[in-house]
């Protein structure tokens, strides 16, 4: 058994993981990053549109500040977020953008003077302030009061990831790529490292660490049809779930992005609509203003996706061999804009579906895109119930997004949370000694070796790819954009069966090396169990909030469901166990979002009573004590001034 010891073990080398690596390496700690792929191939690279931060340099963002950003974020979340965490995020986002500029990101900048732009699809002339010339500019995104999304054309994730990785290279941070963590090693509520398997040659390697950070991204690929990279299979959230101790939160909160292209399900950025693109139906009629007169195409993603599906259900979709879709119209933006600011979008349309967006309409439909749910952590990023285990980025439920995240807020979250959580990880690690319990590590390793033997030599007859398809099918058909009790019941039943069948998977080839079928087979239990948690969580939640929409319970129910779902899978149990906690201290009282319509059932207790219970409630549910007391970063009623 090969054993490697380090201070900080970071699993996942996308933006969030790398930012934590940089924060801890700068404190002279030994850091190792593990990654399924070379860091620059992480899914962060695929983010196109940008990052929200209230710099307010563009004239269309004039007067912006963190409080206005916070209001947009809390409303976007449909009051499901932790308002204090959202506040920590908005306060630090401008710093993070400037820091990334310092690292080398070539942000697009303000150009002074008259500029022709599209506002609510109308060509409009704006005058950019000459005094702001050369500062970081921003574009419009959905659900925002101001133009706030900082960008580099439509390759923002790419440039930020490259700048971040450049910094990691400069600091000489070790990356062990093509390594997959299989199991966390833990004892008595403390994480001690991880058992991993090399995807190069199948070698098993044990890493022992003072602190372990999960930064593996989301679980979108469980849906099969998804804009996500093929590596976003919920591998990190499975590591946490497998402990039986750490809860996953709000797994039923799954985002569908309005503009996945048809077919191939590749994303084209929200920046398309931010820059003036419109949605058209089969008659080439622009339908969004009828549903959302105020925000039109730029309501939040959950709302636009639902409106699109509603319109398709009225028979207004465009028929195609791949199912009904709608059109994204970018033609009026013109060739120059499409070949510069939306160049990736132009390339994707040309290469993958042979559509020239300068002259033709782009076929789109809502497609699974983001996982709001994830490993429940406190505001320091420390996992519930497990000392020394942290989670950051999409894999975590830090919880600034609640039940719907705004476009541009997740890419920004990776670097902001990476910065905040990175500090906490460094502090924790410096005050911790390495515990090298080799016998314990061997016990955990043996479990994985037994699993491999079983998959290769067992008497099972299930095909892993078949099960993957059944999971995707159940989620797609039964736990999609519109949900109801009957379909969810059916989905839960299907997925319970799949969970059982994962025990009988047999790998057909026993070849050495990376053996892709074995790698898939090792992931299937985690995928099936998480899919079941998504479906059961959605069935249990008898209300509609953000991306979770129940046709049979269309109201947002703040009397009974202003809470966060927690799910654990105790070792040896047949089924997951569900629990609920208060969302956090509320400063902005629940109200109407200003888009999306719908009814709200008011809270039964007043805000003060709710807020008084938060700390105690979350502690009981397993939250480790954060470094700073609850609510301290949330300035009381600051929003009243911004309104």
């Amino acid at each position: 058994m090969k054993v490697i010891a380090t201070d900080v073990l970071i699993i996942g080398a996308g933006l969030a993981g790398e930012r934590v690596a940089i924060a801890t390496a700068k404190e002279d700690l030994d850091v190792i990053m593990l990654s399924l792929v070379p860091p620059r191939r992480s899914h962060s690279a695929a983010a196109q549109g940008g990052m929200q931060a209230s710099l307010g340099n563009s004239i269309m963002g004039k007067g912006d500040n963190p409080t206005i950003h916070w209001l947009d974020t809390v409303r976007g979340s449909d009051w499901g977020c932790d308002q204090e965490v959202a506040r920590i995020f908005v306060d630090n986002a401008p710093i993070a953008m400037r820091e990334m500029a310092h690292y080398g990101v070539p942000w697009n900048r303000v150009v002074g003077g008259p500029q022709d732009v599209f506002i609510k699809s109308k060509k409009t002339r704006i005058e950019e302030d000459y005094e702001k010339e050369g500062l970081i500019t921003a574009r419009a995104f959905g659900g925002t009061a101001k133009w706030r999304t900082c960008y580099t054309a439509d390759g923002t994730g790419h440039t930020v990831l490259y700048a971040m990785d450049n910094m990691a290279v400069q600091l000489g941070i070790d990356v062990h790529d093509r390594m997959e963590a299989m199991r966390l090693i833990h004892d008595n509520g403390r994480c001690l490292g991880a058992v991993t398997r090399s995807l190069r040659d199948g070698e098993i390697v044990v890493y022992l660490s003072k602190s372990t950070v999960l930064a593996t991204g989301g679980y979108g690929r469980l849906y099969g049809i998804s804009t996500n990279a093929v590596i976003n299979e919920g591998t990190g959230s499975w590591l946490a779930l497998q402990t039986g101790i750490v809860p996953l939160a709000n797994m039923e909160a799954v985002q569908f992005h309005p503009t996945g292209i048809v077919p191939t399900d590749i994303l084209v950025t929200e920046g398309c609509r931010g820059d003036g693109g419109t949605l058209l139906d089969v008659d080439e009629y622009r339908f969004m203003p009828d549903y959302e007169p105020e925000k039109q195409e730029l309501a939040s993603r959950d709302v636009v996706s639902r409106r699109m599906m509603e319109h398709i259900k009225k028979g207004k979709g465009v028929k195609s061999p791949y199912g009904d879709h709608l059109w994204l119209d970018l033609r009026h933006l013109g060739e120059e804009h499409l070949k510069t600011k939306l160049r990736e979008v132009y390339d994707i349309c040309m290469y993958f579906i042979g559509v020239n967006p300068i002259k033709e309409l782009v076929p789109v439909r809502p497609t699974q895109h983001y996982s709001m749910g994830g490993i429940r952590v406190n505001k320091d990023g420390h996992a519930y119930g497990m000392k020394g285990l942290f989670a950051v980025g999409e894999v975590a439920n830090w919880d600034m997004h609640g039940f719907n995240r705004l476009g541009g807020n997740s890419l920004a979250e990776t670097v902001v949370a990476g910065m905040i959580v990175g500090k906490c990880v460094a502090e924790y690690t410096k005050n911790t000694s390495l515990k090298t319990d080799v016998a314990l590590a061997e016990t955990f390793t043996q479990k994985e070796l037994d699993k491999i033997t079983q998959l290769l030599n067992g008497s099972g007859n299930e095909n892993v790819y078949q099960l993957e398809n059944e999971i995707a099918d159940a989620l797609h058909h039964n736990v999609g954009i519109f949900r109801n009790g009957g379909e969810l019941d059916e989905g839960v039943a299907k997925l319970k069966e799949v969970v059982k069948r994962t025990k009988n998977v047999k790998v057909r080839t026993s070849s050495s090396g990376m053996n892709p079928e074995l790698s898939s087979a090792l992931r299937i239990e985690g995928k099936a169990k998480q899919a079941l948690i998504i479906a059961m969580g959605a069935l249990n939640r008898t209300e509609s909030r953000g991306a979770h929409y129940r046709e049979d319970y269309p109201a947002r129910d703040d009397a009974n469901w202003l809470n966060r779902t927690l799910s654990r899978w105790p070792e040896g149990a047949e089924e997951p166990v569900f629990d609920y906690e208060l969302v956090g201290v509320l400063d902005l009282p629940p109200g109407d979002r200003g888009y999306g319509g719908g009814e709200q059932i008011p809270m039964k207790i007043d805000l003060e009573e709710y807020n008084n219970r938060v700390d105690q409630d979350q502690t009981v549910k397993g939250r480790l004590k954060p470094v700073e007391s609850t609510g301290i970063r949330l300035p009381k009623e600051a929003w009243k001034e911004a309104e």
Partner: protein
Amino acid sequence: MGRTLNCKIFRYNPTKENDKPHIDTFYLEETPRLNLFTALSKIREEQAPDLMFDFVCRAGICGSCGMVINGRPTLACRTLTSDLPDTIELFPLPFFKLLGDLSVDTGIWFRDMAERVESWIHTETKFDPIAEEERMNNTLANEIYESERCIECGCCIAGCATAQVFPEFLGAAGLNRIGRFLIDPRDQRGNEEWFELISTDEGIFGCFGMMACDDVCPKDLPLLEVFAHIRQKMTGMTLKTLGGFKS
């Protein structure tokens, strides 16, 4: 009715004793808008569960899936079978270490390249979290972005004659990276440092000017212009070093 595609795929598992490089042939029914990501995934699911290849974003953005397709290094995910003849020959990218079948280790090479060219902003300026960001002209930001668009797929290196005979050559990807920092005013490297990096056989002198890199680059990076700029800059530095002329 669709065609039946005849996929001839290079196979070799270096971790398997006695395995020898060979070609396996797979037959696949072509479906509308089929790309090589879907085609290879299907072959793995249905015919060859141990077939090794790399895809991540499957959207032409991450650079994982470079391979030689009918003789040409390019991205497999955005290659449509409808643009190819009935017979499709797939080989791993040459030059890089072979991990198995169509999978090669580009990550290690690119990390090494980043270390060699010191692919980061060299600055003495400390980041001040409360200060306004340094201003930059938007045209310049766009120019930097133009070089920054490289996705490290390795196609330019695989297509480069110099790299095949002289593995130390930084290749188009490395030179382009140098070009990216050369025009960035935030990078305070002086002429001597640049000169040392560029004016060697590993740098711009290694290039024979055949420009296959420019031909195969899937992101259409302006490599000709970048190289011209580097040469120009170098000439300027040489003249300054000689002290005779003002550049």
